[in-house]
């Protein structure tokens, strides 16, 4: 069983459209995240949810809206897509500290291409 699964893996769409990416984890973790990885492979946090509550909301356009129906799911909805939104979006989760550190388990990523 995949620990953190996200769908779809690939998404190609036109500018101005609205799209969603879904994420589910079966690890029993309390915290889930969305990260964005740009073309230069830089991984930057977008949002963090702890037990369905928004914890971190970095400087992200409000066209991006995360939703966590329960602690095992964190979805990302993007309105009015722009060319600059093209990237790979990674979902991740973390549980209790492991050996004094906050360790992340990542999904396989969703590659979004905006034309």
């Amino acid at each position, binding site marked *: 069983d995949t620990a*953190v699964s996200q769908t779809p893996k690939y998404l190609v769409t036109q500018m101005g459209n609205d799209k969603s990416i879904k994420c589910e984890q079966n690890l029993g973790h*309390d*915290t889930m*995240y969305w990260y964005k990885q740009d073309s*230069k*492979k*830089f*991984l*930057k*946090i977008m949002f*963090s949810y*702890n037990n369905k509550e928004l*914890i*971190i909301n970095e400087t992200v356009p409000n066209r991006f809206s995360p939703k966590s129906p329960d602690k095992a799911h964190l979805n990302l909805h993007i309105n009015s897509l722009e060319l600059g939104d093209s990237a790979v979006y*990674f979902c*991740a989760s*973390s*549980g*209790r*500290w*492991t*050996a*004094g*550190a*906050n*360790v*992340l*388990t*990542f*999904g*396989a*990523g969703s590659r979004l291409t905006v034309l």
Partner: protein
Amino acid sequence: TQLLEQSPQFLSIQEGENLTVYCNSSSVFSSLQWYRQEPGEGPVLLVTVVTGGEVKKLKRLTFQFGDARKDSSLHITAAQPGDTGLYLCAGDRGGGSQGNLIFGKGTKLSVKP
């Protein structure tokens, strides 16, 4: 803003060579993690170092956390083609399990047979 500077950005070596990747910051981290990412996949944790001066070994990989907990290095001995991938360091800003990890920009390693 806390930044993690990772170097080199790209590294292409022959099988059997040794290499070191560096991760530096002016800020102190409560822990530092190293991840490896293969094409089409998410990053996978290799190791976590928590104590200043700590050294951890994972087969041919040696990880060190600086005494001041501001920097870390990853040394690979006798690299193999299977080591090819993107290596990412990540610093934990502390404060509990609430996602305070910041990532370096990665080192893309290519090991040629």
